[in-house]
């Protein structure tokens, strides 16, 4: 989506440059850190999607490898897991009807990936499978495992396709940029319909195609404002909300008659 405004809420926190390797004797092992300036962000009712910037740093990078650009970083922002039903419409007597369905447990509601390079250039596909990294490699657990593998595969593919089509699953190739040898910046997309809840930001470090280290942080996405209050009241005090809706309707009907009366 064009014209996304940069999201300043999350920013650099842990610029932990390697300050204390003085005592290290063995070749230092690389590691990765990411930090968020806040552990919660609020989106308002008019939220139309945004880019979330996450800063991070490599610790103890090998200068030679870094110069050759053989460090790769993949950053994922994963939404809260929820069960999902995928339904398929089929034609019955000319009418399109939801017929077959498949329920999956614990499917992340959203899944935004940012990478330094296209995923296939960073590591072997088997590696991603093993790490369950990337929308294509997420394991979707069917609720009923006795269904035929072909069916499960079909609905899994449809699930990923629908998620991608609604912007909830996205991939931003080149979204991770090294600002210096140590410091990188990742830009992941927040879809307009990003779910509220606890999101998990994870960063994966690859060195010459080999997975090295992972770091994660948590981010709470909340909705704020009047509309959110309405939503909360509708769910927490549903009876009172219903009574309010009815009273409002009667009041409007009565007032409308007084104001606009034509007879």
């Amino acid at each position, binding site marked *: 989506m064009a014209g996304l405004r940069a999201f300043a809420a999350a920013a650099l926190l842990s610029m932990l440059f390697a300050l204390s390797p003085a005592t290290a004797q063995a070749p230092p092992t690389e590691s990765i850190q990411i930090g968020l300036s806040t552990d919660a962000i609020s989106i308002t*009712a*008019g939220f*139309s999607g945004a880019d979330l910037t996450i800063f991070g740093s490599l610790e103890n990078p090998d200068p030679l490898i870094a110069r050759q650009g053989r460090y790769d970083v993949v950053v994922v922002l994963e939404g809260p897991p*929820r*069960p*999902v*039903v*995928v*339904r*398929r*419409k*089929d034609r019955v007597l*000319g*009418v*399109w*009807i*939801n017929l077959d*369905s498949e*329920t*999956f447990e614990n499917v992340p509601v959203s899944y935004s990936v940012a990478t330094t390079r296209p995923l296939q250039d960073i590591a072997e596909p088997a590696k991603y499978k093993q790490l369950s990294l990337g929308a294509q490699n997420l394991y979707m657990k069917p*609720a009923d495992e006795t269904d035929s593998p072909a069916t499960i595969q079909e*609905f899994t593919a*449809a*699930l990923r*396709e*629908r*998620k991608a*089509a609604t912007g909830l699953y996205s991939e931003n190739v080149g979204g991770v940029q090294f600002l210096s040898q140590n410091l990188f910046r990742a830009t992941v997309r927040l879809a307009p*319909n990003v779910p509220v809840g606890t999101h998990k930001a994870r960063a994966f470090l690859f060195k010459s195609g080999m997975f090295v280290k992972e770091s994660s942080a948590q981010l709470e996405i909340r909705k704020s404002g009047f*509309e*959110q209050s*309405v*939503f909360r009241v*509708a*769910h927490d005090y*549903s*009876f009172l*909300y*219903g*009574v*309010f*809706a*009815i009273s*409002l*309707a*009667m009041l*409007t*009907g*009565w*007032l*409308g*008659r007084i*104001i*606009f*009366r*034509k*007879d």
Partner: protein
Amino acid sequence: MGIYLPIAEISVNVFVLLAMGAAVGFLSGMFGVGGGFLITPLLIFYNIPPAIAVATGANQVIASSFSGALSHFKRGTLDFKLGGVLLAGGIVGSTAGIFVFALLRRLGQLDLFISLLYVVLLGTVGGLMLVESLNALRASRSGAAPVLKKSGQHNWIHRLPFKMRFRASKLFVSVIPVLGLGAGIGFLSSIMGVGGGFIMVPALIYLLKVPTNVVIGTSLFQIIFTSAYTTLVHATTNQTVDVILAFLLMAGGVAGAQYGAKAGQRLRGEQLRALLAMLVLAVAIRLAVDLFVTPPNLYSLSAAGLN
């Protein structure tokens, strides 16, 4: 101006909704119907999820029928006893409807069922009305005096037991068809988000032989309570009532209704009915087309565990 609907969880244009409410209000004022059968499909065409369109439609119907019932109450053209018995049936029907609604939603067949009900009901009512009004128009053009229905004629309904006297309607009928009619309308109200006036009014006139002058007031009276009950139950069991959406529709609706009523007085009855019939048929056809056209996405996702 965009506004975010908290329950429907989408952004919509305020003016589109106000205009939609006003247009439907104008028509409902003109034809003396609640307008729920137009609001709910329009909301669905505007990409509001059907479940929310239905529950919010029921909420919106309260405003228009309350406004209408007030004027009938002042004129004394409202039979409270008949309305009360209809209402008793309505509560039962509405409860059953809500249960079916939740069940269909869980099965993923709610959207289909709502569309099918609309197509069948609107198609039937619209078709019958169109034939009747065209015949009346042709008869009046050829100069023949309209054939008046003989009043006092009894049908099988008047032979049923448990008779009750309704003074304001000058009626002595069995409570079974009254309760049954109320229950049927209540069921439709909770599944379709309609007040049911477009079925209630002809049923009261032709089946129960209620005098025409008390029919609309009584029908509106019972619709207020059935829709209020439906709204409350949808709010508590499905959380699908969007009060912001409902308010925008109502605000446009009550204004439009008063102007519509004025405009309606200038048109002749048959013309009015023919126009309404064509409108009803157009909505039915539009909904029917959606059922048969290959959808752009065969797959759909929904949250599991709604039970």
